[in-house]
């Protein structure tokens, strides 16, 4: 009961501040928290990126594998996005197979990258119809203080842009040989970002932290890319007016330049 009261008081307080264009941590309504890309090698991935978005931390590791293509796309490589909300990252995350929350994040990140046509999947074919590269994009939430969507996209695209792929030779008998030092760089045709906003009262707030997420009345995420196009949309809980959705799209597009600077 007392918890409910505190939550309501906090909600009123945050609402009142946002109404005046202020946030509890001193940011403007459309400002991101500080972003930091940690450069040390923390995984054994073929590409990796550890992102700190305020106090939210996400690390992505890419593992390149080989295998048969999907039957309906015999001349295309495969990429798979997986998100793990580790119980280490929050008292509310529990061990077990991926739940709806982590699947939603994985699918939104996947959609932004796929729709942006960031990866030229046709270049990831070793022998059409038989052997292609499979890129596993494993996104690990390490510390959850709000807005995992944008942290996950930054970290996934950041890791892909640093990925190198081993050159695989396939002889006529089907034997596979590869030299660990012979690699080619994964070229990205686009480096999309996602911009997540929540509705607090009647206003949109960019990059919500945990308490803002908890008191918000709605959530929306836009995937955006370098040519000023939208490449994914996901509305979360709550409802938003058409005007607010349009405003959200404009804000998202205006944030691409800022976010893409972290892709290096």
């Amino acid at each position, binding site marked *: 009961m007392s918890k409910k009261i505190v939550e309501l008081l906090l909600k009123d307080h945050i609402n009142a501040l946002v109404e005046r264009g202020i946030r509890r941590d001193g940011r403007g309504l459309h400002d991101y928290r500080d972003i930091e890309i940690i450069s040390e*090698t*923390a*995984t*054994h*991935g073929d590409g*990796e990126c550890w992102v700190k978005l305020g*106090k939210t*931390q996400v*690390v*992505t*590791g*890419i*593992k*390149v*594998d*080989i*295998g048969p293509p999907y039957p309906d796309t015999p001349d295309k490589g495969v990429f798979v996005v*997986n998100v*793990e909300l*580790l*119980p*280490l*990252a*929050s*008292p509310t995350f529990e*061990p077990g*197979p991926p739940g709806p929350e982590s699947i939603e994040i994985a699918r939104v990140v996947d959609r932004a990258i796929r729709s942006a046509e960031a990866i030229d999947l046709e270049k990831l074919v070793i022998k059409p119809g038989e052997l292609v590269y499979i890129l*596993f994009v*494993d996104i*690990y939430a*390490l*510390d*959850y*203080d709000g807005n995992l969507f944008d942290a996950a996209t930054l970290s996934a695209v950041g890791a892909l842009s640093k990925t190198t792929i*081993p050159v*695989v030779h396939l002889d006529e008998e089907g034997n*596979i040989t*590869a030299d*660990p030092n012979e690699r080619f760089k994964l070229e990205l045709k686009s480096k999309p970002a996602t911009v997540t906003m929540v509705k607090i009262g009647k206003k949109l707030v960019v990059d919500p932290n945990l308490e803002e997420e908890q008191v918000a009345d709605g959530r929306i995420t836009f995937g955006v890319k370098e040519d000023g196009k939208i490449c994914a949309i996901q509305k979360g809980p709550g409802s938003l007016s058409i005007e607010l959705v349009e405003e959200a799209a404009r804000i998202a597009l205006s944030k691409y330049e800022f976010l893409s600077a972290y892709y290096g």
Partner: protein
Amino acid sequence: MPIFVEKKPDKLISEDGTRIDGRKPDELRPIEIEVGVLERADGSAYVKWGGNRILVAVYGPRAAHPRHQAIPHEALVRCRYDMAPFSPSTDRKKPGPDRRSIELSTVIEEALKPVIFKEMFGGTAIDIFVEVLRSDAGTRVAGITGASVALADAGIPIRGLVTGCSVGKVGDFIVLDPGHEEDMWGDGDMPVAFFMETGEVTLLQADGQYTYDEFQRALKLAYEGCKQVYELQKKAIIEKYEKLKLEGEIDEQENS
């Protein structure tokens, strides 16, 4: 389908005891421990040990869920050891628990339980999450080493620190802290952990074959290794609180 097959090196150790990575038989790999690296966890640590990168978080004492697991007269201590899909130097590991990680979770739990004042927190749970981001042999002992400082960081009453270190057998040599190649192709691996205050053993496993004399030497070498790691653990905890103290002093100056 695996792209690479790792090849066994011609020689893991030379006659004079120089190891494949250039170390002497009784030499540890470089180790760094950082305490309090996560915001949400009650206690946390990041361990860099050779090529290993391990993140540990401790939550609790907190309400035990599911309720039927709770023990009325003491805290339920649970550990989850997990390897990230991108942590092995070889193929991707499928996410989620497997037989190995379930066993390691249990032995890590048993290695830490003896030092925790469980009796003070009946009905609650203390959760320890060991996340291997990059693996390079000896992850369980590095995990235990990190978990024990994370427990201290969480302010959970403990009798003292638990410190882990592996020893291995390579040919006729007993070596401290086996590396990746020694772990893969050596003749035995013996992970050990001690409650350093008393010298009691809280983790002991081994594969490979040892004479009694070799076993005795291995255990002694593990203890010598743990003594060095123990100093690093204490230093890491002190460093965090020195930093807090410094921040506190700055705040005080600004306010006065």
